[in-house]
């Protein structure tokens, strides 16, 4: 049964089709990195240099030029019901929205990670108490809490930050606790204990570095999410009070003039969407780069 080497005819066809799919996938991969990264950089730059970038002070009202459509001289994106320049308000709004978002993220990430590692590593009663609180925080509607805070403290920058942080940490805790529990039972932590490493060394040298990956992915995505949440609150009037412009309140300002002055709501809405979208794509790209197993984030 001498076998002869027959050149497999089907190979060439599938090869070229296969190369095309790889090229396509690599192209889309680069796009899903460059565009969102660019948007993020633009957002950060506008937030930092907002006062110098805005053509007019964001709260300068000009009753004569009310509802000016986009493109009118001096008002690239038009003006709102009080004649304020939409472009300057969007620019300044970037600073407001981004600072809220970053402040909330750092508070919630820090608290969430600390609690997560503690409850994951220590286990026992500490773990069950922290997890009970986390479950409550996760299932309690954030918006309602924001309302409660708005009622007692009155709307404002810190009320928004507080409202988003009081429940925000729970997401991080649940994730970090899961990861640290897995790491605590891993072979290399057992190895470290046999080597005589102290609990603190185990937490900082072994658990924390292995938890950083999923953390970074969540934080990237959270930038957009927090801006979305803030804009929701501002839209309902329990967020950033007038006249400070936040993208959410701007959308809310424009909602009664939709058919006549659509641009008042349109442009801030687009900004919110762009930031959230790029946050998601950046997060997805980071996840694939770092650890494909974290698919469920």
């Amino acid at each position: 049964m001498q076998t002869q080497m027959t050149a497999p005819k089907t190979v060439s066809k599938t090869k070229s089709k296969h190369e095309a799919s790889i090229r396509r996938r690599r192209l889309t991969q680069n796009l899903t990195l460059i565009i969102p990264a660019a948007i993020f950089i633009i957002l950060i730059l506008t937030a930092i240099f907002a006062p110098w970038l805005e053509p007019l002070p964001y709260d300068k009202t000009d009753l004569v030029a009310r509802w000016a459509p986009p493109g009118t001289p001096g008002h690239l994106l038009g003006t709102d019901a009080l004649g304020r320049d939409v472009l300057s308000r969007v620019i300044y709004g970037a600073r407001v929205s981004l600072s809220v978002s970053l402040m909330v993220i750092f508070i919630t990430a820090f608290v969430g990670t600390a609690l997560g590692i503690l409850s994951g590593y220590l286990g026992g009663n500490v773990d069950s108490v922290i997890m009970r609180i986390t479950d409550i925080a996760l299932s309690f509607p954030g918006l309602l809490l924001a309302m409660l805070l708005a009622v007692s403290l009155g709307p404002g920058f810190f009320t928004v930050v507080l409202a988003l942080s009081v429940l925000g940490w729970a997401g991080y805790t649940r994730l970090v606790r899961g990861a640290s529990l897995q790491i605590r039972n891993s072979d290399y932590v057992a190895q470290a204990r046999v080597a005589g490493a102290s609990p603190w060394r185990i937490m900082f040298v072994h658990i924390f570095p292995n938890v950083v990956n999923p953390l970074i992915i969540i934080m990237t995505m959270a930038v957009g999410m927090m801006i979305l949440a803030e804009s929701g609150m501002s839209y309902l009037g329990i967020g950033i009070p007038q006249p400070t412009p936040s993208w959410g309140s701007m959308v809310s300002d424009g909602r009664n003039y939709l058919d006549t002055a659509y641009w008042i709501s349109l442009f801030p809405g687009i900004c919110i969407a762009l930031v959230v979208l790029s946050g998601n794509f950046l997060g997805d790209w980071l996840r694939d780069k770092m650890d494909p197993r974290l698919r469920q984030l």
Partner: protein
Amino acid sequence: MSNIVLQVEDLHTSFFTRMGEVKAVDGVSFFVREGETFGIVGESGCGKSVTGLSIMRLLPEPGGKVVGGKIILEGKDLLELSKKVMRAYRGKMVSMILQDPMSSLNPVFPIGDQIAESVRLHQDLPENMVEPEVISSLRLLRIPAPETRLREYPFQLSGGMRQRVVGAIAMSCRPRLLIADEPTTALDATIQAQYIALFEDIQAKTNVAIIFITHDFGVISRICDRVGVMYAGKIVETAPTREIFKAPRHPYTSALIHSVPRLDRKDDRLFSIEGQPPSLLNLPSGCRFSPRCSVSMDICKEQQPPEIKLTDDHSVSCWRVK
């Protein structure tokens, strides 16, 4: 000599990944007769499991694809069959047992239903005949008290028992060919011995042709009639089990056999093959084993050795063998 049930000719299977084409199976040929157990042995990554999956045409999507060769089961080339016909073959004509009993059974369905599902699919029996058929499959695998086991869930059974249930599912429709992909690896020694004895019993009763995939020479020696030794996607030697152990002709086969510690005598120094198995992305030119072979010659590094038939059942691919 009973007739040949399965004839695999020059099978090529590749995985198209981002890093390029991985030639998992690179020209494999063998045959299995009725009532015979053909063993495929090799180290991890040599392509033995991929061969099994190629026969079942269940290569993981989207990358896996059979890119060449023929798989003839009872006269029909499985690669030519339509998807629908192939699906009808699976479970009826050819079946498979997987390695890990802990995760092979669906945790949310009782085991009786999981067996009945195959029976209803491939055998058009009246409903009242289904349960007796299921019980007879459980009995074939010598599972105690099958009537009560029917309603139990997988998590209520031990590893050994679950592997028998997986066997019952595979044999429920009396297939012509059974592919066992390392079924004993996850079992303890004594449970493994029970399971192997079971295989001999099943083959005696049903005369099914078996392909037994494993890396454990102990299992090979007890179960297989003939063995194919695989290395980096190719079968380097095929021979009856006795000859493989008694007079291995391929350097890799003999090196493997001598690096396994013996139970019946004290070895002072184990023979160990130097280096690492080759990466399937960029395979060495010529004979795949040449970089690690202690007796490799220049020609080994340039050209792949042809397959030489020493006897009817013993063939080897090595330049050293004339």
